[in-house]
């Protein structure tokens, strides 16, 4: 069954039509590359899924049940995690503290509860090992490479039982070697039967890791097909409008 299904989703901001009549299905363990030019409606779509604002029209269902998110924490509770473009990390804290930020592990009883650093370091270490990342839980994020920082942000999504991970331009500003690292992190998520939406401008990255590609143009979905049946040339044409739809 589809983990997430959008049907006829539209969004207006006053007279501006940011998104019109978009339908989209996400399956467990599937990586979907979401592509489109600036202003094509990618981020509006993602923000609706993430609960930043409700759609003007249309419905969202998760595992067949209708859902409506009023704030990001609603979406988070439903199992939708976001990896922000800037990763939303605190440079002055350790990797483990960042992973657990806002969901710290505590020990003690009643009102006498203190942070359980030992458990957080241990569990964060396990998460990094699971992601096959060299990130060390006790290191300050300030001293980390772009790839390690990505691992911290992604490890955060593994804390809860996330079903969908939305990644906003994860490979935009990092080195070639780190991109490979991030793409393998995406594959790790897929192995765990998590649906990943990869918002990206970088064609090679999307083609390297995605199973399916969705192209947006002027608020409409103009293509939704298996990556094997498409090509970078076709996608470029779809993004620019040289090809009407596919």
């Amino acid at each position, binding site marked *: 069954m589809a983990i997430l299904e959008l049907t006829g989703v539209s969004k207006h901001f006053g007279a501006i039509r940011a998104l019109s009549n978009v339908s989209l299905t996400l399956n467990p363990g599937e990586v979907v590359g979401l592509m489109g030019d600036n202003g094509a409606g990618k981020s509006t779509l993602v923000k609706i899924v993430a609960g930043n604002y409700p759609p003007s029209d249309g419905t969202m269902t998760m595992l067949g049940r209708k859902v409506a998110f009023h704030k*990001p*924490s609603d979406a*988070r509770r439903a199992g939708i995690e*976001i990896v*922000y473009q*800037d*990763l*939303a*990390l*605190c*440079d*002055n*804290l350790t990797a483990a*503290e*960042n992973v657990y*930020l*806002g*969901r*710290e592990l*505590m020990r003690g009883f009643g009102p006498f509860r*203190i*942070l359980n650093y030992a458990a957080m370091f241990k569990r964060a270490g396990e998460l990094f090992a699971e992601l096959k990342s060299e990130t*060390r839980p006790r290191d300050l994020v*300030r*001293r980390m490479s772009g790839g390690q920082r990505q691992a911290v942000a992604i490890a*955060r999504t593994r804390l809860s039982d996330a079903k969908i991970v939305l990644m906003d331009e994860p490979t935009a500003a990092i080195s070639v070697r780190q991109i490979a690292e991030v793409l393998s992190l995406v594959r790790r998520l897929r192995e765990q039967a998590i649906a990943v939406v990869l918002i990206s401008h970088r064609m090679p990255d999307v083609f390297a890791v995605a199973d399916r590609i969705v192209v947006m143009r002027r608020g409409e979905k103009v293509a939704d097909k298996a990556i094997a049946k498409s090509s970078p040339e076709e996608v470029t044409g779809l993004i620019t409008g040289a090809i009407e739809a596919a």
Partner: protein
Amino acid sequence: MVTGNSSRHPVARQYEVAANLEQSIDKSVHRSWLTWLTSQQTFWVSMAAVVAVVVLGLASDVFATQQNLFNVTRNFAFVAIIAIGMTAVIISGGIDLSVGAVLVLSGMVVGMQMNAGASIWVAIPLALAASLGVGAFNGLMIAYVGMPAFVVTLGMLSIARSVAMVLSNNRMVYEFGPDQPQLLALGGGFVDLWLPWLGQIQIPSPVLFLLVMLLGAAFFFRWTRWGRYLFAIGGNERAATVTGVPVKLVKVSVYMFCSLCAGMAGILEVGWLGTITTSLGQGMELSVIAAAVIGGANLSGGMGTAFGAVVGAALLEVIRNSLILLGISTFWQGTFVGSFIIIAVLFDRLRARDANE
């Protein structure tokens, strides 16, 4: 191999590079506690304070006397107590300029209440409530209305002192009703403590308060969610918000905590002086911020320790005291204090540059 003078095979060289990398990573992981210690600004400030104390003990006959040390510790306790609160605010990326005014407001509430015959058990809670109220107002304006902390607390600096003047009609208050002895004991009293080698020493009661505050704050900064959230907000406020940290609530609470510290210091200082005028604590916010900054609090947020704040305050007082004892004109005090602020931050800058390389 094409070039003749390269003695090693490129693959071998690559392995060597990798091995070196592993080694250096290893080294950085197993950094000894000594490296950690020497990388802390607090450590160097503590050393500076210790050196100053030793030099003074040798240079002046008066410094190491119990009476002088008693005075020094008591004098810096007031600034240090507030500096702990200020450090919390600075860690969260804010600033509180209103502490000196809150100090006098709190002192004046206690003074006027007791002057009118109220019990100390009524006057002190009232003064602390007034301080918390000021902090709550600051915090609400900063967190919920979104005004810059500098502006809100600058306004409050003016308001709180003016309210203290209105309350007292700008009089000097020195009669504190039936509970006067308790108030004077609270701020001016001491506890006898017997220590091995040193024998019996007197600990001024503000210093005891300071110790309790220090231990409490150090614990809360490190071991509670509230403490972690202060650092997270100061490090990256947006990240804290999107990860579900109650940023606004924490911000309000930290300004309340800082005001509470100032209020407590105010009560203690009135008890010590045995009198209060509306000029009490004027310009104190600058000493407090100086103490926090010298102690390692970073004004851009995300860094600072309670211990550092106390050591910073101690260093400032030792400098002040030493200039007096050595017979140097008190006009030089500002130069010395100012230099220490600049040196402390300069040191931090150099260290940050080292870390980036």
